[in-house]
């Protein structure tokens, strides 16, 4: 249990007669990059909402960063970071102001915020951009800043929602290097995407179909099991049934 960042057992969510998430069971290890895949409407979003404490499960149990999804949702929120493809950055605020704002939201001390702001700007090489509004940043910079802001409170787990859609191959790789670095430092990364080539970058992936986890393993194991060359083909076989 101690080595797991996330443990879910029989986690279920029903809306009336409709079972959106049907008894999913899985574990994510500490420091692991875990890909959570599924078609639109497969139940990914509902599952994640339960994991991050935004939706109460109908049945089953789960702990996230060591905290219970029924009883300790506030503790969960303090210990996770979240970055979506849409970026939660304020376009009209400067780079510094965005970091300040999120540091404040997460209750960091003034001193800590100043430290964090300096280290993020240093690490991302954003010195010349520090006082520019985020709206003027190139997409790749926004993406990296967005990741840094999601990590400003040193969360144990970072949830990434389709992090690299539409960026050029170099930017995308710079982003994945950030993820590998974070994972190397013991931070757990939970990635949701429906772009299967992104899945190839994950240590392990699960694939949801109609509310259930239908496959779980390393990308290589899944490709071997389904006797195909790409995660795209694994997914298509599973989703088409």
């Amino acid at each position, binding site marked *: 249990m101690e080595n797991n960042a996330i443990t879910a057992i029989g986690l279920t969510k029903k809306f009336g007669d409709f079972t959106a998430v049907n008894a999913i069971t899985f574990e994510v290890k500490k420091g692991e990059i875990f890909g959570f895949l599924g*078609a*639109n*409407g497969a139940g990914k979003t509902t599952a994640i909402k339960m994991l991050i404490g935004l939706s109460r499960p109908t049945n089953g149990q789960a702990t996230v960063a060591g905290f219970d999804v029924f009883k300790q949702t506030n503790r969960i929120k303090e210990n996770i970071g979240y970055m979506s493809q849409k970026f939660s950055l304020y376009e009209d605020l400067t780079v510094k102001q965005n970091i300040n704002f999120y540091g404040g939201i997460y209750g960091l001390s003034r001193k800590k915020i100043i430290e964090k702001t300096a280290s993020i700007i240093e690490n991302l090489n954003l010195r010349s951009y520090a006082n520019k509004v985020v709206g003027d940043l*190139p*997409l790749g910079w926004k993406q990296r800043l967005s990741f840094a802001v999601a990590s400003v409170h040193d969360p144990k787990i970072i949830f990434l929602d389709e992090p690299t*859609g*539409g*960026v*050029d*191959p*170099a*930017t995308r*790789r710079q982003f*994945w*290097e950030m993820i*590998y*670095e974070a*994972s*190397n430092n013991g931070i757990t990364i939970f990635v949701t995407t*429906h*772009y*299967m*080539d992104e899945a*190839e*970058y994950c240590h392990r992936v699960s694939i949801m179909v109609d509310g259930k986890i239908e496959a779980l393993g*390393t*990308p*290589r194991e899944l490709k071997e099991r389904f006797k195909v060359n*790409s995660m*795209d083909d694994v*997914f*298509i076989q599973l*989703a*088409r049934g």
Partner: protein
Amino acid sequence: MNAIEIKNINKSFGDTQAVSDINFSVKKGELFGLIGPDGAGKSTLFKILTTLLIPDEGNATVSGFDTVKDYKRIRKIIGYMPGKFSLYQDLSVQENLNFFATIFGTTIEKNYHLIKDIYVQLEPFKNRRAGKLSGGMKQKLALCCALIHEPEVLFLDEPTTGVDAVSRAEFWEMLKRLKAHGITILVSTPYMDEASLCERIALIQEGKILQIDTPQNITNSYSKPLFEIKSHDFYQLLKDLREEPFTERVEPFGEYLHLTTNSDISSNSISEILEKKGHTQIEINQAIASIEDVFLDLM
């Protein structure tokens, strides 16, 4: 005559050069892909070709008609599916389709053969409002509406962005069938893995064309030694390889790192060097370049 002919096209918005000195042609009946990330200039080029923007310099023709002088002629003979969903959200599936057929002076019945394969999947939802459809269904409806007047040239701007892998695969199958009807298709995508589904592609980045050829010729054009490598510690491996004098570039590539070397070093020698640095479970193979490798090299 080529279906699309683009000569020295330039377009700026204020200080931003959106596309610069674009030249290429698309043959009649060809499935041609414009491959590049967000902000590369794909949509600007589409808007110029579909007569919605006037270039600052250069000219372009579609089916022989000039995009500036003959814009009215072009609008009758092309189908355009913009990157942003642009159908009427409050009209039903059938009403949208009827609307587009009517403004082009035709009927659904007349060109039903073109959309049949796609429309059968939409039929169960024909009374549903377009705004209430799933991403994949919206995309299919938008394609039907772009096809209903039997266009000579079809412009599809990022049709597969935001739809899942199954819908994407189905969409590309539909494009192949449309090609069989003789329709010329220019399609853009930020997803490099879709490049191989086109007959020819242009790689575009920051408003400039990097290369134009068949996907096969483009990947074959990668002439440097390329390896795929992994070890027990992926991130350390990346950092270690970056320090080596034989490394030209090294980047994460899914499960492996892709390493391009600047000399004829063998995989055994690389493996030995890595072992000395403490790496275990080393796996190293010669790799075949993908479109992404070429793109990274040309950037």
